[in-house]
């Protein structure tokens, strides 16, 4: 049959963000894929010329609408490293608590969208019901629901009282129980497995070759997680990356599901070990030099390059987001697949396009 080119996106019911793929299709089977990006480019990196390095935190938080906390944390860590500032231990633990809560809400958002991508709307609503609890925790502890704006250079802006920590623990137990109820539906249901098992297989060798990061890499068997670097207070917590084996859509959803539990465990550990003390130290002077920082975002490795020359504005800021690293893998797994499987496979790498285009 003749080749047909079908556009997928930038507006598509399954995509939350504008990713455009030109799919070359023969008999409903994809033979070639060509991506097009640039629909939501905002030029945020260039704003370093206008906003000073402290105001940039609020700009950085808006790079990604879902994992804002981790972006701001990565940026602050870079500036702190350049200025030689040691963050108080309590602030480090608070950062880890909030960042793991952010990872949980991002993974739950993804799990819901993933269920929606194969038409399982009630599962989508159940996952988002759990996510709502996490947003309530954010609102009660930081004042905002998603863009929580707690990071400053030299610490955090808000503290958690003993009562807040206790209520956080009980809320997290509720989340764990609710996740347990959904586990069989997502991971053992016949219909769900029919749509996910064996779809979009990415082998370990191929994943390594393409430089895949985050849960997509871990589902293919690469035990790579930036949290192993032990940034912030993670060095004092027990952490072992969740690794899958099969590298298909099912393995990716399983890895993300288990990472929510792992984050619950990390928050519990952090609450148990959190020391007393101050949460913020005053900084003096301005940053100079250049630095590279990496943290583990819900989608994978987040990479910040910052160059400063001692003035109020930074000289250069470069952000590499995990979706940028995962798009080549998506393009390599799509050929040979049925057109009807494309939404599930595209969503399985958790594309965050506004992050990627900044």
């Amino acid at each position: 049959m003749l080749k047909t080119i079908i556009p997928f996106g930038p507006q598509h019911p399954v995509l939350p963000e504008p990713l455009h793929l030109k799919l070359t299709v023969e008999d409903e089977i994809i033979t070639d894929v060509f991506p097009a990006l640039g629909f939501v480019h905002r030029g945020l990196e260039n704003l370093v010329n206008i906003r000073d390095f402290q105001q940039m935190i609020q700009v950085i938080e808006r790079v990604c609408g879902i994992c804002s906390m981790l972006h701001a944390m990565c940026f602050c860590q870079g500036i702190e490293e350049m200025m030689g500032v040691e963050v108080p231990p309590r602030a480090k633990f608070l950062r880890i608590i909030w960042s793991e809560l952010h990872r949980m809400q991002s993974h739950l958002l993804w799990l819901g969208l993933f269920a929606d991508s194969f038409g399982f709307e009630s599962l989508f609503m159940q996952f988002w019901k759990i996510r709502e609890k996490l947003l309530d925790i954010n609102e009660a502890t930081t004042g905002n629901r998603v863009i929580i704006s707690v990071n400053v250079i030299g610490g955090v802006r808000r503290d958690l009282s003993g009562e807040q920590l206790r209520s956080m623990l009980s809320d997290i137990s509720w989340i764990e129980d609710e996740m347990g109820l959904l586990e069989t539906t997502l991971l053992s249901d016949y219909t769900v497995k029919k749509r996910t098992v064996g779809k979009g297989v990415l082998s370990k060798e191929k994943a390594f070759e393409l430089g895949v990061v985050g849960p997509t890499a871990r589902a293919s068997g690469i035990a790579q997680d930036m949290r192993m670097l032990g940034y912030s207070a993670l060095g004092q917590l027990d952490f072992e990356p969740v690794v899958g084996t099969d590298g298909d859509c099912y393995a990716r959803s399983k890895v993300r599901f288990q990472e929510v539990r792992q984050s619950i465990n990390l928050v519990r550990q952090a609450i148990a070990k959190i020391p007393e003390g101050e949460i913020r130290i005053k900084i003096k002077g301005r940053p100079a030099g250049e630095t590279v920082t990496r943290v583990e975002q819900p989608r994978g490795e987040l990479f910040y390059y910052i160059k400063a020359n001692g003035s109020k504005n930074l000289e250069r800021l470069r952000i590499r987001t995990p979706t940028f690293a995962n798009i080549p893998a998506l393009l390599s797994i799509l050929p040979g697949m049925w057109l009807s499987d494309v939404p599930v496979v595209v969503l399985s790498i958790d594309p965050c396009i506004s992050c990627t285009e900044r």
Partner: protein
Amino acid sequence: MFKMTPNVIRNLLHKKATRLYPRLIRPAFENVRGALFNDVAQCTFCGVCAVKCPSQCIAVDKKAGIWIYDPFACVFCGICADICPAESLHQQSEYRLPLAGRETITLKGEPKQKIEKTTQIPEEENDDSKD
């Protein structure tokens, strides 16, 4: 069937997962970053909020004693309320309601010549506001 029955019974006996929103509103949490409010009687029109604001939604005329705020450009980060030396800026726990048209809030008050000693601007804030 055997798997579904416990779920069905649980859902029947459990309370509703949603609220009947306009009739039943969840009370706001404490210290929520809601609508920004300026108490003009306390405001010294020092202009620190305008300098520090990341979205540049505040403009202050020190001599005339005018404080202008664009709530549609505001990102509700709460930095202005945190650093306000006179503690006149604070955030209410209620969010701003949606509006059909844009509006700018302009407040006029008595400009003060000096900031009192007890409410001095912190050192690092001083550094940046000079630039």
